[in-house]
């Protein structure tokens, strides 16, 4: 049924590595707290892509572990996003800014 000609594994991995690096770039270079979160989400997504890729290219017999981990990872990153964004709002209320450079003390 699903006879999709897939590209080779290293290619997918390179794309995933690029996505990961871009996520890291967003997390490291942006000053806005939300975008650091977005960068982390992107890195997680890249990791998911790796899981799916390795699942797809794994030799038979074919366990569905990769897909399962991807599903769980998506669920967990959703939880992470919810809590993270709530924290951004809470911190914003306190500091009146979203610039992470100014979040440098725990005192409050």
């Amino acid at each position, binding site marked *: 049924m699903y006879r999709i000609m*897939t590209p080779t594994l290293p290619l997918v991995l390179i794309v995933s590595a*690029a996505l990961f690096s871009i996520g890291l770039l967003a997390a490291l270079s942006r000053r806005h707290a939300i975008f650091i979160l977005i960068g982390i989400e992107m890195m997680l997504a890249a990791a998911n892509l790796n899981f799916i890729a390795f699942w797809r290219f794994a030799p038979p017999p074919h366990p569905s572990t990769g897909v399962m981990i991807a599903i769980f990872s998506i669920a967990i990153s*959703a939880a992470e996003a919810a809590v993270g964004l709530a924290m951004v709002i809470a911190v914003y209320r306190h500091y009146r800014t979203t610039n992470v450079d100014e979040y440098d003390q725990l005192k409050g």
Partner: protein
Amino acid sequence: MSGVAFILISILTLAAALATATLPNLMHAAFCFVLALLGLASFFFLLGAEFVGLALVFIYIGAVAVLIVFTILLTRRDSKEHHGVNWSGVLIAFAVFVGLIWAVLKTQSLSIVPPHIRALTVRQIGQTLMTGYVWPLQCVGLLLTAALIGALVLVMEEKK
């Protein structure tokens, strides 16, 4: 054909991701993030993991993206644009990218022929989730509940 699709999708995804990381307009960047995720979901489709792709769209575009956009809106009063590029960050990210690419290319065992596999149906996924992965599933449910409550508690206005 799928080769063409692959190239198109990867260009779209990476371009959108790059835009997310660099665009100064926050709202545009957020929508670019959505686009990048859409590209990722198409990747999953291409690799035969339909369900994961749909779940990604459902969760990220339906819920997380809206959350992000809302958060940007709620923290809008912070009008100062945080300009200035953190060059050390760019450097590190680039170094990691090079390192990863090098590692991927160097590993010989990766060049394998994609096996012909039967599609993973939703039914199979459901059965696997309910048998072998029942404990993780419950834990994730608990985690989501805790995250929900935690997020609510965090953003609740403090009563004075």
